[in-house]
């Protein structure tokens, strides 16, 4: 390679006086400002709301707090919330595992459309989710007359609440499992098959242990959302006190009755649940760092 005439390219530098700032001073100052802004923002928008819940809950003393929680309608709200979660979460767990298996172990056309479909609930307002079930099972819905004739209550009853909750929460487990299983590939399963294991055995002994933490993570998020769902359930439940009120709905009722201490008392239980969820999430992320932020990037890989 020749070195062509480089007069224009490079000017032999004459000794120059080099500026001597100490930007380390500036950097440190800038750093503090940024950290300050971030912390102030988080304090105002995240920390304070959390503190307010507990402050208000205990504002009238612990006696009132406990009374609010042991009140019969509060208690039945708690039971209903737990029941709905106990049904919705396992169903979504099954769906999550099955759909993740279908998507990550096989090649087929329309895979990315399917994945988009699974993400659908995130694009739908929970109120609209509840609306769709009213349209199907409400008194004037498609199946309304049929249900009334057979005295089956779906909307304004527990089944409707379960359905609405399932709609809103089914993506959670699938979304966590898909990148995890995608990253693990098919090697382990194919190896087990070649050694003579049957389909179920492969799943139980090979796949399941591998996806343990992703599964737990998805279940954790699914459960948090299921217990906290408000909009969809609000539309479908009919707000029948003592019968079709979940905890979030009960909070709303108490609040609208200006019974603030009681409302926040029940809310504090939900807030506590949220904190437990966050703790569990952090623990799992610490144990398996791929879970953190894994979803988005892996999705892009899927679509290739």
């Amino acid at each position: 390679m020749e070195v062509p005439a480089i007069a224009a390219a490079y000017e032999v530098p004459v000794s120059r006086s080099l500026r001597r700032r100490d930007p380390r001073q500036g950097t440190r100052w800038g750093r503090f400002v940024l950290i300050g802004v971030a912390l102030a923002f988080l304090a105002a928008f995240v920390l304070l709301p959390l503190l307010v819940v507990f402050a208000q809950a205990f504002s009238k003393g612990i006696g009132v707090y406990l009374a609010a929680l042991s009140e019969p309608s509060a208690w039945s709200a708690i039971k209903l919330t737990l029941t709905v979660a106990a049904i919705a979460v396992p169903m979504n767990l099954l769906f999550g595992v099955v759909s993740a298996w279908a998507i990550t172990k096989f090649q087929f056309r329309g895979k990315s459309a399917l994945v988009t479909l699974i993400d659908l609930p995130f694009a739908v307002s929970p109120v609209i989710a509840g609306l769709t079930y009213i349209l199907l099972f409400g008194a004037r819905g498609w199946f309304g007359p049929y249900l009334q004739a057979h005295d089956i209550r779906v909307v304004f009853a527990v089944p409707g609440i379960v359905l609405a909750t399932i709609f809103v929460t089914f993506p959670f487990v699938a979304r966590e499992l898909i990148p995890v299983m995608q990253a693990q590939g098919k090697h382990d399963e194919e190896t087990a098959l070649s050694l003579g294991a049957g389909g179920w055995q492969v799943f139980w002994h090979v796949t399941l242990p591998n996806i343990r933490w992703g599964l737990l993570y998805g279940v954790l998020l699914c459960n948090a959302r299921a217990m906290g769902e408000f909009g969809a359930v609000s539309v479908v439940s009919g707000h029948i006190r003592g019968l079709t009120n979940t905890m979030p709905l009960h909070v709303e009722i108490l609040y609208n009755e200006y019974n603030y201490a009681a409302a926040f008392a029940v809310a504090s239980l939900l807030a506590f649940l949220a904190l437990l969820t966050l703790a569990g999430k952090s623990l799992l992320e610490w144990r398996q760092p791929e879970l953190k932020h894994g979803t988005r990037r892996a999705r892009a890989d899927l679509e290739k």
Partner: protein
Amino acid sequence: MSITLRGVTKQFGEFAAVDDVNLDIPSGALLALLGPSGCGKTTLLRIIAGLETPESGQVLFDGRDATSWPIRDRKVGFVFQNYALFRHMTVFENIAFGLKVKARRERPPAAAIRRKVQSLLELVQLDWAGERYPAQLSGGQKQRVALARALAVDPEVLLLDEPFGALDAQVRHELRRWLRRLHTELHFTSIFVTHDQQEAIEVADTIVVLNRGRIEQTGIPGEVYDLPRSAYVHRFLGQVNELRVEWREGRAYLGPVDISSDPALQPGAGLVALIRPHEIDVVDESAGWRATVRDVRVIGPIVRLELGAEGRPPSEPLEAEISRERFDIGRFHVGQNVGVRFRRWQIYPADAVLVSDAAA
């Protein structure tokens, strides 16, 4: 611009990456920092650039203390091992970057920038690649862009961190030659880091051999190769055969070869001789140390012979390199009995060799 390092030390926790280094680099030098991984050469380079701050010591640019100067004020061009090109910018924009970020009063007008970038592109023979993105270039091309980018701001010092490590042999060879020519034409001070002694010898005017954060030897390539001052340098700069010096009845031997006349000999235990393969003569069986030819490798213009010398364990053969002509004359083959003679050797304390062994 001349660079002086005085007592520079850099620690990472307990580990001293650079340990009390003193070095004078005259303006216009083409210097290689040579050593194995972990010897501190890259750290030293980064200290000069301002990418690391030493715990103690001074870095002087033209006699001025630049130790605490921030990176952007040092006016050094740095070429990273992995190119560090701006992925979202075209080749042209990459090279123009340094010019575009200059302060308003120093910034040349757009037309001047364009001309300069154009001439740099021609310099690195990538004038066709101006509108390409780095991802569309090969490793060698990316390296040239990185070089052009660094040169665009007229640095007084060019620092290169293992610039050719990730490239094919042929490309490496061409770029090495090219860097030398560039340096000859442009006369900037240039320091590059490498673990490849071949590269250091081929390119640099001065080689600095580093070991565990300290300078072992500084000198021109011939000096460092032929007159190594320590076993470490001797071993690093090329292949060596190692033989223990044996004392028998007050005389020193390498195998059966009497070397008592060597002035470097010191009485006492633990001496070792290092001999380069081409410093071994393979002669007739009767004229030297008896040995059997165990392997013959013809490598272009030279031939490498693996010799099992009498009295040496079979796991420690001697490696000799002879010219093709000599090989053709001697007609050496496996199993043949020959004689070994040493044209030259160098003596070192035995523990020095072992210590360096552990480090390398």
